[in-house]
Structure formats: C-alpha cells, structure tokens
C-alpha cells in the first residue's frame, strides 16, 4: 500500500514538474498573469472605488460574487456542523459536578440524583474539571476586550490596511473561543447563546446577499454598489467604497458566528454543555 501510494505520488509529482518547465520565471513582471487582467485592477481601483487596498477592492467589488459564495461556504460549514453533531434529545442527566459557590465545595451528583439547576448558590462545573486557575482567567479577561477591539478595527480598516471582514471575523470569533477556553463553555454560551449564534450567522450572510439584491431595485446589476448611491447620499465612487464596508461587516458577523458555532459543536460533540 505504501509503495503503491509512493508510486502514485511520484507520478503525480513528475507530471507537475513536467508542467513547470514552461512556466514563466518566478517573479517575472512580464508574465501573462501580471500583464493580462491585473493591471486594470491596479490602475483603476482608486478611480472606481477609492479603496487603496487593491485586494479588498477586488475581493469585495470586482469579484464580490466569489466572496459572497466564500461566505456562503463558511455558513454552510456552520450549518453542516450543527446538522451533523448537535444532539437535541435530552438524555437522563449523567453524573454532574456542582460547586457550591459560598463554600467552594464540589458536589458529585450521580445519575438520577436531584440537580440544583436553578439555584444561584450552585455553579455547574465540567466533569474533567480544572481547578480555578487565577492567572489564565484574569489574563484572558484583561486581554479579551482589546482583542475584540482590534478585530473590529481590522474589519473597519480593511480599506486602508490588510484585513477586512473575514480576518476580523475570525479574530472576533477567536476571542470568544479564548473566553471559552479560559473559563468554560457554559459561561460562554450564557454570554452568547446558540440561538444568537445561528441568528447572527444567517444575518451576516443576509447582509451581504441583500446588499446585492438592493442594487437590483435601482436597476443595476447584482452587487453593483454604485446603485446604492441614492440611498447613501454620496457619489457612485464613494457608494462603492461604502458598499464594500457594509459587505465586509456582513462577512465579519457571519464568520464570527460560524467560528463560534463550530467551536461549540466540535468541543462538546454537539451537547453544548462542557467543552475543551
């Protein structure tokens, strides 16, 4: 098996090397890839969209349709993960650990025992429970707001510096993951419930798709943000720039929600009670 695999792989590699022979030189400014389509983007971005970051402009405007489906792919993964893993059937509660908050005593409640579910004196803790780690928790609490602010900054400044909706969304999702890692999954779910996550992921993608659809109402093609000029009250070029920003916000929201939902489901196998 291994040798057969190696042979297949080597054959594939030889084919690839064979194809490499006619490649243009690495970094050649006169190669077809650099001379056919891309000069148009580089030279007209400022006039068309007034966005200095060419990648953002191409991503969200010239090829905005790709990006919409990229967001859909992420959304699809989120839904797929919920579809595959989430368990809704409530089994009889297994063994659970509770901490009595005023005294710090840990109670182990076996199957069938009475659960102090609604009491404020008790706090549920994970079965594979880690004692209160002061340093990590406090450090994460200090760090999380800054990282969130940074993520929002990345989303908002996608026009001028690297970054944009996707990167910011991932970082924003990562802060919630960080919170979940440093505290535990239930605390995070209290802060951001599962319903909210699903709603946000759909809302983010909806912002993108409906921004495009709004353009249809003004008689221009789908995703042609210059049609939004009438609503936004600016000239078509700035309308494109603002359209890109709106779309990036949609991407950010969707990606954040999906990343969080993926983490919720992967780390708890769909039970969403205790995680990593």
């Amino acid at each position, binding site marked *: 098996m291994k040798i057969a695999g190696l042979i297949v792989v080597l054959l594939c590699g030889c084919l690839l090397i064979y194809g490499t022979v006619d490649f243009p030189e690495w970094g050649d400014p006169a190669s077809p*890839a650099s001379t056919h*389509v891309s000069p148009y983007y580089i030279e007209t971005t400022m006039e068309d969209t007034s966005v200095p970051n060419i990648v953002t402009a191409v991503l969200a405007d010239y090829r905005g349709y790709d990006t919409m489906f990229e967001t859909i792919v992420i959304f699809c993964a989120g839904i797929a993960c919920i579809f595959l893993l989430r368990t809704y059937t409530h089994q009889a509660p297994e063994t659970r650990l509770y901490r009595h908050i005023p005294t710090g005593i840990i109670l182990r409640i076996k199957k069938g025992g009475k659960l102090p579910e609604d009491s404020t004196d008790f706090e549920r803790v994970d079965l594979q429970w880690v004692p209160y780690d002061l340093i990590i928790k406090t450090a994460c609490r200090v760090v999380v707001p800054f990282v969130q602010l940074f993520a929002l900054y990345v989303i908002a400044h996608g026009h001028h510096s690297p970054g944009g909706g996707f990167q910011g969304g991932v970082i924003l999702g990562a802060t919630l993951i960080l919170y979940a890692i440093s505290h535990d999954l239930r605390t995070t779910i209290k802060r951001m419930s599962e319903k909210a996550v699903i709603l946000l992921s759909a809302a983010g993608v909806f912002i993108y*798709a*409906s921004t495009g659809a709004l353009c249809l109402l003004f008689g221009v093609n789908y995703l042609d943000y210059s049609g939004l000029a009438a609503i936004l009250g600016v000239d078509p070029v700035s309308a494109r720039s603002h359209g890109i920003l709106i779309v990036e916000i949609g991407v950010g929201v969707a990606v954040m929600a999906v990343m969080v939902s993926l983490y919720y489901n992967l780390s708890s196998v769909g039970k969403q009670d205790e995680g990593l």
Partner: protein
Amino acid sequence: MIQQLPAIIVVFPLVMSFFVVVTGLWSKRICFPLVVTAISVCVLSAGIILSSVINQGPIHYWLGGWQPPWGIEYFVDHLNAFMLVAVSLLSLLVAVHSKRSVEQELPEKRSQFWSLFLLLITGLLGITITGDMFNLFVLLEVASLSGYALIAMGQKKAVFASFRYLVMGTIGASWYLLGVGYLYIITGSLNIANLSELLPHMYQSKTVLVGFAFILVGIGIKMALFPLHAWLPDAYTYAPSAVSTTVAPLMTKVMAYVLIRVIFSVFKPYFSIEEIPATTILAWMAAVAIVVGSIYAIAQTNLKKMLSYSVVAQIGYIALGIGLANRFGLTGAVLHIFNEIITKGCVFAVAGAVVYKKSACNTRELENLYRKMPFTMLAFTVGAFSMIGIPPTLGFFSKLYLILGSIDAKQWVFVGILLFSSILNGVYFFRIIQIASFETPMPDYSRGTPYEKVPMDEAPLSMIIPMQIMAAGILIAGIFSADIVSTVIQYVIPEGF
C-alpha cells in the same frame, strides 16, 4: 426585471436558506413551504430564461456591472438554460417528494436539512450558470460541502462513506483548482470565454497540457468516472433517501456538464481531439465504466446500491458520448444527461418511497411490491424501461444517438459495448421487476392459506405525484426528443463537427 433573472435564480434560494434556518429556531413547520416557494421561483425564472435564450440568443450577465475578464460573468446559452430548467424542476419534484421522508428520518433537524438542501440546489444552479472558472470552484465547494453533510446523516455506515467522499471530493476540487491555476499562469485570465480566445496560441505549451489533465482528473473524481468512482456507491446507498434522490441525479450530471464545458468551450475541440488524445482515453475509460458498473450493479442485493452502481455505468454513457467527439455522440451525451437527471430522479424516488414504507430496500423488501404499491411501481417500470432503452422512453433515444455516434466514429467496439450493456441493464432491472411482481414468493403453508391476499400499502400522495410526473416526463420527453434536439442541443454542438 427580466434582465436580472440570472442573478435571481441563484440568489433567491440562497436567501431563502437563511430564512429557513432562522425560522427553524422557532417553528419547523414553515420551513417546507419556504423551500417550495424558493424552488418554484427558480423553476419559473429558469423557464423564462430558457424561452428568452431560445428566442433571443445567449444572455451575458455581468455581476457587479464589471466587464468579463475583470468581473465575473454569467453566461447562459442553450445548454445552460436547459440544464437550469432540468435541475430546478427536478429539485422541486424531489423537495415535494421528500417532505414526508425527511419528517420520518430526521424529525429534529428539518430546518438545517432544508437549509442545506437549498444551498445544494444553489450550488448546482450556480455551477450550471457561471462563466468563470474560479467562481465555478467556489460554487462547487458550496454544493459539495452541503452534500457531504447531507449524506452523512443517513444510516450508520453513511458517516464513513461521507468522510471518504469528503476526502476524495476535496482532492478533486483541489486538482481542479490547480488546473485552473496552470491555465491562469499561462494566460492570466479566468473567464471561460476569454480563456477560449487566449488558449489556442499556447496549445503546444506543456503547462496547458498538465493543467488540462488536472482539470479533467478533478472533474472525473467529482463525477465518479470509472477508476475514480470509489466514493460513490457507499455514499449514495447509505444517504437519507431524500438526499440520494437529490444528489444522485443532479451532482454527477452537473459535473458531466462541466466536463462538456471544459472540453468544448474552454478548449477548442481540436485540442482535446487532435493535440492530445484526451477524448479517446475518455471514451475507453467510459467503456470500461459502463461494463464494470453494470456488472457490479447485477451483483447487488440492495436496490439503492444497485442504482448507485447504475449511476457509475450511466456516467460512462455520458463520458462515452463526450469522448466520441462527433455530432451524434455529443447529442447523445447531452440528451443522456437530461435522461439521467429525470430517470435517476424517478428511480431513486421509488427507492425512497420503498424505504419510507419498509425502512429498507433490500431485495426481500421488494417482494410483492406491485400489489402493495402499484403506483410507485408503475413509475419504477417506466424508469427501468428508460434505463434499459425501450422505445418510447427518453433513454432509448439517447442510446440511439450514442450508437449512431459510435458508428460514425467507426468504433465498433463501443457499439458492441452499448448493446451489451443494454442487456446487462435489462438483466438487473428485470430482476427487480420480477421480484416485485411475485404474487407470494414464499407460500406460508403453516398457516393453511397459502395465497393470502396482499393488502395495498401505497406511499403517501405527496410522494406519488412527483414520481408520476417524473415518469410521465420520461415518456413525454422521449416522444418529443426530436424537438429537444432541434431547439436546444443542435446549438450546443461546437463548430467543426
């Protein structure tokens, strides 16, 4: 508004899929009507697009208002438009058909199911309509990802089958992407129309050759062409019946459509016929696929598994038609794509109905089925006839064109294989029909009354009607196949054939 239809046909089900998820949080009952509305809009707009293409010629739609080599273009010609109608119509029928079986198999996750279903349809419609190589990749991933998830929720073995599908599918998509990269490095363009203008100057280049090979292999994996079909049978067999009814007719056929696009639109036909013997290799692989698929299908005892192997064989037919690379062959291939979509939809829908009633579809469960579920089996009989190629059905005509094409190409082996495979098809479909028509297979003498009357136990109406429509569609399309060829398919044939 009519100019905007190419965008609406893809975006409307997309937006609906978000609504389905969100409404599913509160009420699962609204999901299904939303789905039907979404797909109905698709059918409607696909119909309008088809008529306008037939009357006014191909449509170019620039997304974002950017001109093609820079922006993304939707390009709708006769082939696309007809594919759009077929895909959306079939998905509407399947959606109605699978309402009950979804309620039975996945009661709690209906909203996610329908959302993923809509995303799958969106992906397939998008693949069909797009005119951009990279956009095709992204849409392909949308369709595939939702497909993986949907397949995995079937029986116990489905998860592992779906995992294998995922791994192979990702390799296929990656190779497609790699091939597109090879074309991009040498031309600098991603638009199909633009590529077909730029490429002819570079047919000698090794890069183009390797890129072409990788695109072919990538699509081959996705469409389960013979040596690369390993993922298909398990995945389609163990999937939930609603999913196999959707994925089996549509997924591989849409990829076959992409294959036609790549070979005849992106590249000029003489490249794949004369510069490299791609079509010849394809034809021979297809011939092997037909024989092997049919033989495997005979050996199966599970109806769905048999049909899955039949998919492998039928993909062989389509690939053979493409590989013959002449007028009749290509006509046969396109006609067979339509035939496959509608017939496989019909046959898998029957399997779904049987699973709904009997919760399995092994050979034992099929006994006495003509008595128990007469309407269902009527549809199955029509579908089986079309698979075998018995005259008034569409399958007969598509095979006829394929045979004519083989004769035209003077490939007598292929003629033999086509005829032989029809016999093989006959063997396995007639075996099912025979089993299903047994009066009482194992007379139960212990009870004293050997010929007990079998009660009728038909599937619900929401399943029967779509199946009957599909069966009728097979016959009608068969009768009017000459019209289909003259209004649609003759424009598909590239120049020089």
